[in-house]
């Protein structure tokens, strides 16, 4: 034994608990831990007592890791979330009873042949101790311990979150439950906010069956901010319309009438509008009836606030678009895959629509002339053509920025004029297919060509109309070119 150290020389006699070994509490600051280590290690010469030095260092590292973990776990979870996620202030944690016996809980939860859990430092928060067990590979014991805690103290966010992730990591730990069940369990014990709600929102976005489940419907009764209720309802309705379960909408609206006062005008406007976004495209009679009631209700929301006005404007736009879309469906010239994109573009997030749009473009752009004719077929419904244009804008945002034009204006003008002066421009309609082919071949936007010839006196189509104006106004032509350019970006 060293003359100045309180520790015996035989490491076998040292406490196994790193806290006991260093003589620090589980609330010690890192500086205190380092100081304790340095004081004890000073008594041993690393050359003569390497094992003692290694044990002390291992104990220091373990305690520091522990403290770091503790710090992480005690940090309010809101600090770790994405900036866009708004959470209500963290609720006070359930007080942990001082007399809670973790080993008893583990014994109760463990099957008879289970391996005995590793001893935990005394006096530490059980949740943290159990989670540390999970981190050291004892996932099964940790899971059972957390379930036992839940049974004893009721659902708390910190326990349910850990159960969710443990079951995600090892689904075989519990064949009776899916990870999301723990989120719902935790939410039922509280409100629609916080990390549990954030994770559950993500589940709902990808799982229509979960959105339509009864336990999800039950969450509409929870205390919640209006925005959270609206969000929950909208995600359920999206799934319901796809499954044609109209009663889900009527049932939810009934529940929401009791939850959301009429004074929540923006929330109600968003609800009616969200229902219309989905219902408008359905051909089912029940959906059409429900849609007209929603539209009427939206009109009855008494508010002049800019947000509500904006919601109303958007719905009028939707009405025009849907009317145009319906009138085009019997048209033979309007390609069904293009028409199928329109409702999706309105009611689904773009990342979901993008693969379908690209698949359509891959087929349509094989024969640019036919694609132009297809766009001509929908040109009579400007709202539909404009929506296709919006889809292309969204596509552009997902692509690398276009390379800078390497050619000068005079290079482009030379190309354009050579084409125009040798092409048959007697009639605009046949000419524009040649123009599209030229634009695609030379990678020159029709709008660019229009600008280049705007002041040229030789390109008047009639006394009133210059070719540049005809080209610039030719939305089908411009969109056909843009679609091609984006596809081949």
């Amino acid at each position: 034994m060293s003359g100045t150290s309180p520790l015996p020389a035989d490491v076998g006699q040292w406490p196994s608990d790193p806290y006991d070994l260093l003589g620090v509490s589980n609330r010690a600051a890192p500086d205190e831990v380092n100081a304790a280590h340095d004081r004890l290690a000073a008594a041993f010469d690393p050359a003569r007592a390497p094992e003692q030095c290694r044990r002390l260092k291992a104990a220091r590292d373990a305690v520091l890791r522990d403290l770091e973990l503790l710090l992480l776990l005690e940090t309010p979870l809101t600090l770790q979330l994405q900036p866009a996620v708004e959470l209500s202030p963290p609720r006070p944690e359930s007080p942990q009873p001082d007399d809670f016996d973790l080993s008893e809980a583990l014994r109760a939860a463990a099957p008879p042949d289970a391996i005995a859990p590793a001893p935990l430092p005394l006096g530490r928060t059980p949740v943290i101790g159990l989670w540390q067990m999970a981190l050291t590979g004892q996932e099964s014991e940790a899971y059972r311990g957390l379930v036992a805690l839940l049974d004893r103290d009721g659902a708390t966010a910190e326990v349910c979150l850990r159960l969710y992730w443990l079951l995600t990591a090892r689904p075989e730990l519990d064949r009776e439950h899916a990870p999301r069940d723990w989120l719902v369990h935790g939410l039922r014990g509280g409100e629609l906010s916080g990390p549990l709600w954030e994770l559950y929102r993500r589940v709902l976005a990808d799982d229509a069956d979960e959105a339509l489940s009864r336990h999800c419907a039950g969450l509409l009764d929870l205390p919640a901010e209006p925005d959270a209720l609206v969000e929950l309802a909208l995600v359920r309705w999206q799934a319901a319309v796809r499954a044609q379960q109209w009663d889900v909408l009527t049932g939810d609206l009934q529940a929401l009438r009791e939850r959301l006062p009429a004074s929540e005008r923006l929330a109600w406007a968003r609800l009616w509008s969200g229902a219309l976004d989905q219902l408008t495209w359905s051909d089912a009679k029940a959906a059409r009836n429900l849609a007209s009631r929603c539209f009427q209700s939206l009109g009855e929301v008494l508010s002049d606030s800019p947000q509500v006005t904006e919601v109303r404007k958007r719905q009028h736009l939707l009405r025009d678009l849907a009317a145009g879309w319906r009138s085009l469906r019997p048209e033979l010239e309007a390609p069904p895959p293009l028409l199928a994109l329109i409702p999706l573009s309105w009611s689904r997030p773009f990342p979901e629509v993008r693969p379908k749009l690209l698949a359509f473009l891959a087929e349509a752009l094989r024969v640019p002339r036919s694609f132009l004719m297809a766009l001509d077929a929908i040109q009579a419904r400007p709202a539909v053509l404009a929506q296709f244009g919006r889809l292309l804008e969204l596509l552009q945002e997902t692509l690398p920025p276009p390379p800078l034009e390497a050619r000068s204006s005079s290079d482009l003008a030379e190309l354009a004029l050579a084409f125009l002066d040798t092409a048959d421009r007697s009639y605009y309609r046949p000419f524009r297919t040649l123009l599209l082919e030229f634009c695609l071949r030379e990678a020159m936007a029709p709008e660019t060509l229009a600008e280049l010839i705007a002041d040229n006196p030789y390109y008047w189509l009639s006394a009133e109309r210059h070719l540049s104006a005809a080209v610039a106004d030719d939305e089908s032509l411009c969109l056909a070119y843009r679609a091609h350019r984006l596809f081949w970006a």
Partner: protein
Amino acid sequence: MPNAAPDPGPWAAREVGLSPDATRAEIRAGLLREVTRDGFVPPPLRQQAWEILSAPRDSAPPWPPAALLAEEARLRGEIDDFAASFFATPVEVRRRRWQELSAVCAFSPPLAARLAALEPGLGLDLRPGDIGNPRTAQLASHVAGLFVLAPAARAAQRQAVLRSLQTDIAGWEETARQLLAVSPALAALEPTLLASILGFREQQQRLARLREGRQHSGRLPPARRAVAPVRPAPAPSSPSAGGGRALGWVAVVVIGIVVRVCIGGLGSRSSSPPPPQIDIPKFDPEEHERTRKMIEEIERLQRMNRENEEQNKKRNPRDEQERLRPGDAGPAPRRGP
């Protein structure tokens, strides 16, 4: 519909910083450690990566759309690299790499299309000695360089190449013909360039004539000078309209007779137009030009006549609506002298 995306496992492993070969135990340990660091609410994409890695092999969740987008961008870069060294890569290696890329890019129509566009060049081994003289090899190099570019870059580069060849365009015409003869498969990779070289002088001559004609006339096109539309739709009952129509028919008949005489003079007794002249030494440009102009004039008069007929005889509301559809600005005024 796009084909199935490749296995998302490697992407998910990259996203969370694990090796693609990580064991289930390593994945579990990594997940629990990292979600703790992320405060139990990791960023959505990372969460989806963990879910993909943790799911049983037979029920892995699909690619998150945002991840698919990132994968598409990554593969686009790989295709660009592949294209950049396309002809420098030995044929066998090139073909194998193309097949690998085609397999993993099948989910993305634009990437699949870009690879499909490269397919015609897969088997071509560009060895200068096989192509001919250095000049032909130089043109072949231009063709190969353009072929591997995406359409927008190709268009810009093609114009630059054409500009560089203009100083000796007659010589390059000959070279283009040689390239077509010695390596038609290579020439077919960039037909636009070769067509532009071969047609350059003729196009320039046509343009020069047209622009010279404009200068000599010293006038602006009729539509610019006119106060009223150039060709207003004549009223059905108008005597002048009927007279114009009759005049059009007379012109068609007279010019038709003249053309027949001309064609007969060239030795053809068939009633169908003669096949296009391709025998350059026997070709008489002046005669050809005269004939071509006459044919154009006939076509113009026939079009005018058809238009008059459409407007006067078959006029009904639907036709009228069709004629006035947005975007159809109607016929252009007569061009040039």
